[in-house]
């Protein structure tokens, strides 16, 4: 039943490795972009707040599929922006990462912002009353508390990102969902076995992340 795995015709692990790489680069990128967005959304400058709000509302209401296809059809095929990739494989990968960052960044931003909002205002007021400067308030009082409450939501963002990397299949990135589609077409008799293999792959990718980071989140949570 599982003999399709031994035929050597399909590189299942290689396909999952692409998903892991997509997750890795997008996670780093969206953490940076999400932090920038969150910084705008809580900044004292009204124009930046407006931009942050508008960006988050627009992008998180757009289907990720549309964003990634837009990166491929709009940015690359129409405008010729290849993000420095020189072959089809590289370009598709980079465009997918760009789309994932643009999308996931909004969720990182919202998680960070709600983390900052859970710090009681009294904490910052007390710190200011002690004469701490803005950066001292930020780095000694607000961020340490915000960061601890943010781990659990960020874990969920990371898990969702891992699953969302399959959307890259829509622009032909050779990752797990695309390979699964191909295998199902070729090995129709082994439909359930193929599905089981790929489902297991994703359980293996997401379950440990959730368990480990969930344990961390519980340990460091601020008891209020």
């Amino acid at each position, binding site marked *: 039943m599982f003999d399709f795995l031994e035929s050597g015709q399909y590189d299942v692990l290689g396909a999952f490795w692409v998903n892991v790489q997509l997750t890795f680069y997008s996670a780093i990128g969206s953490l940076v972009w999400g932090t920038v967005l969150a910084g705008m*959304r*809580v900044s*004292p*400058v*009204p*124009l*930046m707040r407006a931009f*942050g709000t508008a960006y988050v*509302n*627009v992008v*998180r*209401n*757009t*289907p*990720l*599929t*549309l964003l990634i*296809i*837009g990166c491929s*059809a*709009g940015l690359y095929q*129409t*405008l010729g*922006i290849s993000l420095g990739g020189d072959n089809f494989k590289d370009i598709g990968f980079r465009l997918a990462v760009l789309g994932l960052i643009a999308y996931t960044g909004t*969720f990182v931003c*919202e998680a960070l912002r*709600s983390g*900052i*909002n*859970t*710090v009681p*205002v009294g904490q*910052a007021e007390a710190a*200011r009353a002690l004469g701490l400067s*803005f950066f001292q308030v*930020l780095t000694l009082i*607000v961020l340490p508390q915000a960061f601890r409450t943010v781990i659990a*939501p960020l874990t*969920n963002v990371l*898990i*969702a990102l891992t*699953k*969302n990397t*399959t959307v890259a299949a*829509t622009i032909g990135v050779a990752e*797990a*969902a695309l390979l*699964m589609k191909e295998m199902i*077409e070729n090995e*129709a008799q082994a*439909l359930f076995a193929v599905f089981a293999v*790929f*489902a297991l792959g*994703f*359980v293996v990718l*997401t*379950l440990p992340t*959730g368990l480990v980071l*969930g*344990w961390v989140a519980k340990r460091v949570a601020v008891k209020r």
Partner: protein
Amino acid sequence: MSSVLYDTPGPRAKARNWIYTGAFVVLSAAALWWVLAKMAEKNQLDAAKWTPFVEDSQIWSTFLIPGLMVTLQAGVVAMVIALPLGALLGIARLSDHAWVRKPVGAVVEFFRAIPVLMLMIFASAFFVQFTPVTSDMRPFYATVTGLVLYNASVIAEIVRAGILSLPRGQTDAAKAIGMRKSQVMTYVLLPQAVTAMLPALVSQLVVILKDTALGGAVLGLPDLMSMYRQISANYANTIATLVVIAALYIAFNFLLTSFASWLERKLRRSKKGTGTVLGVEEVDDLAAGPHPDGPVTPGAAGTVPEPEGPGEKA
């Protein structure tokens, strides 16, 4: 504005904020200029590429409106099937009997761990092999099946979180007046939980609508997403088409998101009931995946200082 980060600005802070504003305007103008220049270079700003959307009614009647209808149909059908299924799974997961609770828990966690795209691809192949569904209806069935499998398990978690978020006193009081377990659930817990869950359910509908686009891109569902190929093939205006389609998605989803956060605010303020509300932020498409410590801490939903809903202007 005074917040946890900033005091009300004085004269120096105000001056500094103006400098930041200026720098931000310059930066965004530069970015916008670069984008527009790039588009102009490839003739994407030509009026001929954009005017069909206002002048040519055919583009709406043959592509956009039918596409939008398919998207809405798929989303609504998936929601209508997933809702009772999810409610059933969610209640089963709270059962006192381990032989019900554990298998259902495993099923829910399994379907939440798998990308919805894979479920759709699997459903499509399943329909080919085992059912007589015609090939023109297959993409719709497959898309809806994938969405139902995934979202029923997410809704199961919403329902479970909604019931767990009710104060313990509700169950205790119901038991004290001699209600049976099924009565406690149907007369006391569920009606209150449904109210508490409404905002989360509405925002789940947004997630479903967004995910229908996968069916359009991979399975050949003739939805709004898939229309971009046909329109840009006819009018050679890829970017304009993508922008218009995105705007349609955003308009619909933004309406729903705003409705969800309005509902949440209204329920939170209302004097009736326990005041427990399962917020839009607590259960999101991104909140999917195994929760190691249960979905939402019981009783926490109403007490944590809530961030503003996503639909609000800061």
